[in-house]
């Protein structure tokens, strides 16, 4: 199997692509292939990794033009019909280099973040956006003597959002993030929604106001790329739609920038 890999070192005039060939064993992940290439062919190849089991979120990158975790992407399955992901277009998905999906795996860095080296991007902006929504639990006071009482159903609803590993795949898949430098992006908004629906919160209803701005909830265009690429099944588009509906209901009559139907019925997540 051939791997066409994006290469960039600070100071280079422009990025380029190197092609590597490595014999794939069944079940080999893109991360394992990159590791083999780095150890055996080009020690200078740089990428991030840690858990290799799709729980830590370190290795998000653009693989065959889809933001994915490299550790969770099986080389041989990438071209299977069931693994094809259709995304609303944005610039990073355009052709950057000639490649043949039938014989090559195209590996590029996660879009919408500054390049550091090869497949390593600077995640600072991503985490700064997360901080901007105050992603911290504010409990009801006084605290109970033991744990808070919580219905199992409330936990199930919350879990869909606490499962986020902050890998940034959704951020790199969002057409709005490709052109709006103020948009916090799907992961940050999904995290904010997670606190909004936490029944243990001091004032859960007020949390969504933090992103009630033109560049917050209202900047989403419901491409739903985020939900499609999330390796953990988190549905940010659903959270955004729900938040917008709630905000609309809170102040009927107040004009909001209406981007049409929130399409909740289509975004089951």
């Amino acid at each position, binding site marked *: 199997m051939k791997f066409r890999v994006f290469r960039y070192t600070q100071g280079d005039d422009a990025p380029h692509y190197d092609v590597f060939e490595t014999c794939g064993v069944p079940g080999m992940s893109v991360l394992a292939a990159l590791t083999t290439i780095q150890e055996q062919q080009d020690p200078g190849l740089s990428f991030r990794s*840690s858990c290799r089991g799709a729980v830590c979120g370190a290795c998000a990158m653009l693989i065959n033009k889809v933001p994915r975790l490299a550790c969770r992407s099986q080389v041989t399955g990438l071209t299977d019909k069931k693994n094809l992901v259709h995304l609303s277009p944005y610039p990073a998905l355009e052709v950057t280099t000639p490649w043949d999906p039938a014989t090559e795996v195209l590996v590029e860095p996660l879009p919408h973040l500054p390049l*550091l080296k090869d497949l390593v991007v600077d995640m600072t902006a991503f985490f700064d956006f997360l901080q901007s929504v*105050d992603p911290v639990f504010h409990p009801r006071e006084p605290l109970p003597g033991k744990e808070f009482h919580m219905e199992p159903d409330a936990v199930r609803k919350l879990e869909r959002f606490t499962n986020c590993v902050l890998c940034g795949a959704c951020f790199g898949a969002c057409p709005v993030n490709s052109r709006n430098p103020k948009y916090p992006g799907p992961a940050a908004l999904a995290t904010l929604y997670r606190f909004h629906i936490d029944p243990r919160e001091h004032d859960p209803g007020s949390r969504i106001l933090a992103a009630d701005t033109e560049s917050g909830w209202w900047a989403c265009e419901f491409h739903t790329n985020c939900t499609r690429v999330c390796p953990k099944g988190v549905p940010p588009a659903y959270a955004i739609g729900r938040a917008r509906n709630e905000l609309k209901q809170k102040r009927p009559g107040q004009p909001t920038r209406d981007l049409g139907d929130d399409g909740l019925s289509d975004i089951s997540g």
Partner: protein
Amino acid sequence: MTVQPDAPPSTAVIPVIHRHELIIIGGGLAGLRAAYEAVSSGINVAVISKVHPLRSHSVAAQGGINAALGNADTTTHDSWEAHAFDTVKGSDYLADQDAVATMCREAPAAVVELEHMGTVFSRDDAGHIAQRPFGGAGYPRTCYAADRTGHNLLHTLYQQVTVKGVTFYEEYFVTSLVTAGGACAGCTALCIQDGTIVGFLAKATLLATGGFGRIYERSTNALINTGDGLHLALEAAAPLKDMEFVQFHPTSLYGTNILITEGARGEGAVLLNKNGERFMKNYAPGAMELAPRDVVARAIETEIREGRGFPGGFVHLDLTSLGEPLINDRLPGIRQIAIDFAGIDPVTTPVPVQPAQHYSMGGIDVDVSGRTPLPGLYAAGECACVSVHGANRLGGNSLLDTLVFGKITAQTIIGDLPDLDPGGASVIEKAVVEEGNRIISLFHRGSEDNMYQIRDTLKKTMMDHFGVYRDGPSMDAGLIEILSLRDRCQQVGVPLMQTPYNLPLVHFLEITGMVRIAETVARCAIARNESRGSHARKDYPLRDDDHFLHHSLLVPDGDGTLKVRTSPVSLGMFPVKERVY
């Protein structure tokens, strides 16, 4: 200073020195729990980690955290004393009973505290934190968040510490601890992103770097678990303890060795050999699949060795009787892992599993307050050995260890700070220059040897000679191999290249440490002529309390040779008994 390969050795540049009262090396649960405690009392804290803290291996912990909350519906009420007894028995009586008592007594508060910080735990029908049965436990005591408990805890703590003003140095690899006047004064670190060596001057240094599982060919651990903190301690002449006790988790996914939580068995999954036989009845007829990990791992290993495993070397973990709704509710991550990494859906098909290295009971020698014998140096979490796990850790006790001892150690540091004086920055500046020059020299070694071959040989050696079963002659041969790898590390170099995001340089620093840590495991294992907990010797199959009811203490001599000494086990709460399940 920059460490580009073409840079001349230099003392001309003034190194960058960061100053903090407390530096914490490692951003997993122990490190972040300590950071939370320290920053909450107004201390200037920095966390230094070779990865973003959320990529720490704590995030991968699945099954849960033990605390005698007594939420489960049982005829008798759980208690911290019952938890302590199970832990001591599970440890094969090698754990320090005073330390175990502290951990188990503090457990309910530690769990509730994290819940109050926002951690989402699974709930029972009454709305309390749900508790499931785990191996070696007398009660359903393991609190869980489906099978993502570590993830939920780590993300919660990360959120808490980031708003409190902890400084993070992400993607910094600590290359040495610096001592001055017989105390730890800070460290030197490689900034992976720009390839410079910088210094940290601190009154207190806390090691919270996790385990060293990657010295084994088969490990459930993250790729980053290379034991860096233990190596740093050893190089600073701080002793290591009980290094021979390496836990093999019974159920790692065949192929990638990704963890399949004990929670699966807690929920009712059974182990089957190739004849479809529920073989645990031959090894632990009382506890069956919920015997402690060392017992179950040996049972599986024996089944495989005696030809009752499947070709390739695995047995089946059968979840099919649990049903899809329960699996989706309580084990969704496991289902996804099996589908993603083995192409198997546990709802319909048994999962192929085999034992793999999982946890290091041993580690940096600390007392129950988190102090190492070196003033100013502390350790907590998996890299430390208090000891609360003795010869075998119970499932659900490692997350607990990180939270309880992360907090206690920070409190110790808060109390010690007024008496700690690291001196001026000059000793750190000197160390930065020396480290810089050492690293530049690595680019100019002439050897044709390959560091990855050294690493792979090490992993195989550890698997073959220091695995689930051990014996004297095999371990002796293993040690000889390790020593030859150590010699090769003295020769092998780092490929010439610019240093930003230089993976080979990071790997070199990891691999030299891994070889050294392997030697400590080997020396402790060879010195213990008995079988206890995870240390199972074919040539000494029985526990020998008369001669070996003691900790192994590994103390580096001035010339770098390692001597195995002993230290007493703290007993008194529970009498030492035969261990039967």
